[in-house]
């Protein structure tokens, strides 16, 4: 108990509450209007997706190009449940059901494919995600290519905040645990990790399953905000989008992923005014950032409040 209630956790709790309160205030006085709210939702969903992919790709070093597939599962399962079960807790039931099914699929996919390495794993996960998408495309119950409409809107700022904060906290704590350290050791050197007695397959699958779980949550939040989902939303380009956030932020930096998700959303919102050139500029930015800063914005460093305060304290002394 003593350890839990130290100054550091207090600082985090206060800053989280402050972020929540300020945004809530801005929404209620309508400075964040309907248009900005869509961006806010996308930022939160992208943070969840990027942080969970970072666990797989950045920390465990398993290059996955299939994150959108898990997002699709979460989105569809929760959409089906909230459409058929209109009651108080249907959102939470749908959300967790979606996340659990996504992680189950992640488990089933992970066991055979995680034997592969590097590029081969990337291609296999890409193929899996595309197969998931094509299956949804061919199931008439969920609307096929036309998509599923009329999903009730449950996602709002409090829920978004809770799930985004929970994702970040859970994953960063996981990384600091001995399981997380095992994952990092696999990234650094798989053979050395194995010879130190780490069950590499187990940890790779574990990271993959956790990643899939949170991707499922992100999908559920998405489908319960936008009323409408269709298989094409979760195509290969969506997986690429998530990967771009992770790499841009720095593989192995959670705060980097958060920062990159916000930055990319701002860039793309700003570029809305030039619809024709939007993607061209986006692509150029991507190339330029990669050429001049291939390790991403943060590298593997983390931005933390306490280190910020420590630096200030050092300066004062």
């Amino acid at each position, binding site marked *: 108990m003593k350890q839990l209630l130290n100054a550091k956790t207090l600082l985090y709790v206060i800053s989280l509450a402050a972020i929540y309160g300020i945004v809530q205030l801005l929404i209620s006085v309508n400075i964040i209007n309907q248009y900005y709210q869509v961006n806010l939702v996308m930022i939160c969903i992208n943070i969840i997706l990027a942080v969970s992919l970072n666990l797989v790709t950045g920390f465990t070093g398993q290059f996955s190009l299939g994150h959108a597939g898990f997002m699709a599962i979460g989105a569809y399962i929760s959409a089906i449940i909230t459409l058929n079960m209109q009651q108080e807790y249907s959102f939470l039931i749908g959300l967790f059901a979606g996340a659990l099914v996504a992680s189950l699929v992640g488990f089933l996919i992970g066991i055979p494919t995680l034997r*592969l390495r590097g590029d081969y794993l990337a291609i296999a996960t890409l193929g899996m995600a595309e197969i998931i998408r094509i299956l949804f495309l061919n199931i008439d119950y969920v609307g096929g290519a036309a998509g599923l409409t009329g999903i009730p809107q449950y996602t709002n700022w409090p829920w978004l905040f809770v799930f985004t904060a929970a994702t970040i906290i859970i994953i960063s704590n996981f990384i600091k645990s001995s399981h997380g350290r095992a994952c990092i050791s696999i990234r650094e050197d798989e053979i050395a990790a194995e010879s130190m007695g780490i069950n590499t397959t187990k940890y790779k699958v574990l990271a993959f399953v956790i990643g899939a779980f949170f991707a499922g949550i992100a999908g559920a939040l998405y489908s319960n905000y936008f009323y409408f989902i269709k298989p094409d939303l979760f195509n290969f380009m969506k997986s690429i989008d998530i990967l771009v956030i992770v790499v841009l932020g720095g593989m192995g930096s959670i705060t980097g992923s958060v920062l990159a998700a916000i930055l990319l959303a701002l860039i793309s919102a700003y570029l809305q005014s030039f619809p024709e050139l939007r993607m061209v500029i986006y692509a150029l930015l991507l190339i330029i950032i990669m050429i001049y800063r291939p390790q991403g914005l943060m590298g593997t460093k983390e931005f933390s409040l306490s280190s910020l305060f420590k630096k200030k304290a050092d300066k004062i002394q």
Partner: protein
Amino acid sequence: MEQFLQQIINGISLGSIYALIALGYTMVYGIIKLINFAHGDIYMIGAYIGFACTTYLKLGFVESLLIAMVVCALLGFLIEKIAYKPLRNATRIAALITAIGVSLFLEYGTMFIVKADVRTFPKVFTEKNIHITSGLVISNTQIVIIVVTVLLMALLQYIVHFTKAGKAMRAVSTDQDAAQLMGIDVNFTISTTFAIGSALAGAAGVLVGVYYNSIDPLMGMIPGLKAFIAAVFGGIGVIPGAMLGGISLGVIETFVSGYGGSLYKDAAAFAILILILLIKPSGILGKNQREKV
């Protein structure tokens, strides 16, 4: 039986196009271990150049094909110099993201210039169907596709195995450092590889325009992925593997859609990919490499 043979003919003509694109993937992967996601878009550019040549310049098929190949080769050369060369020593994932950036740039840059609408590729040949038997038909376009593909592959085999540039390419892909020590200009060799691969993709673009008669700026995404699957299927980095993989993928796809599963056509391609990765990750013609500690 006739339907079966007909599917094989259709499959081989589709597969030839995949094979031409797959060759570029496999060559680039073989030499710098980069999945060049922009390769499918070079094929799209090839189709647009073919379109411009035949529609506006009123050139014939052969001239258009050659012009498209030359322009795409230059484009591939330039892309390598500008986007990939600075990342030669960076992590592979950074190079991959750059490739994705280049791909998006080509797609949306083309869309900005030519607008997003689908264009109709002019008919360069008067459609003629040759009946082999009463139910077995091969069109003259299909014959052209197969002949051009075979010629280009033969040319590629000649370049890779019997010229100095080809020897340099093989040397760099085996061991870059050793090749450099032997006085091979590694950067130039890599650029040449990009140029040759892109030229083949450009040719595939023109052929697809002639075959399907419609082109659009995003047409390169799916065939690009499929060609990549074809390359993995045959064994990535192995040139005959890409040919074999491309043609088998084309045949399998036509069979899946020919026998009722057209909606699952793309899923079939990916399922094959996963199966081959799980059973023999090095591909049909690839050699198993022992892992070194």
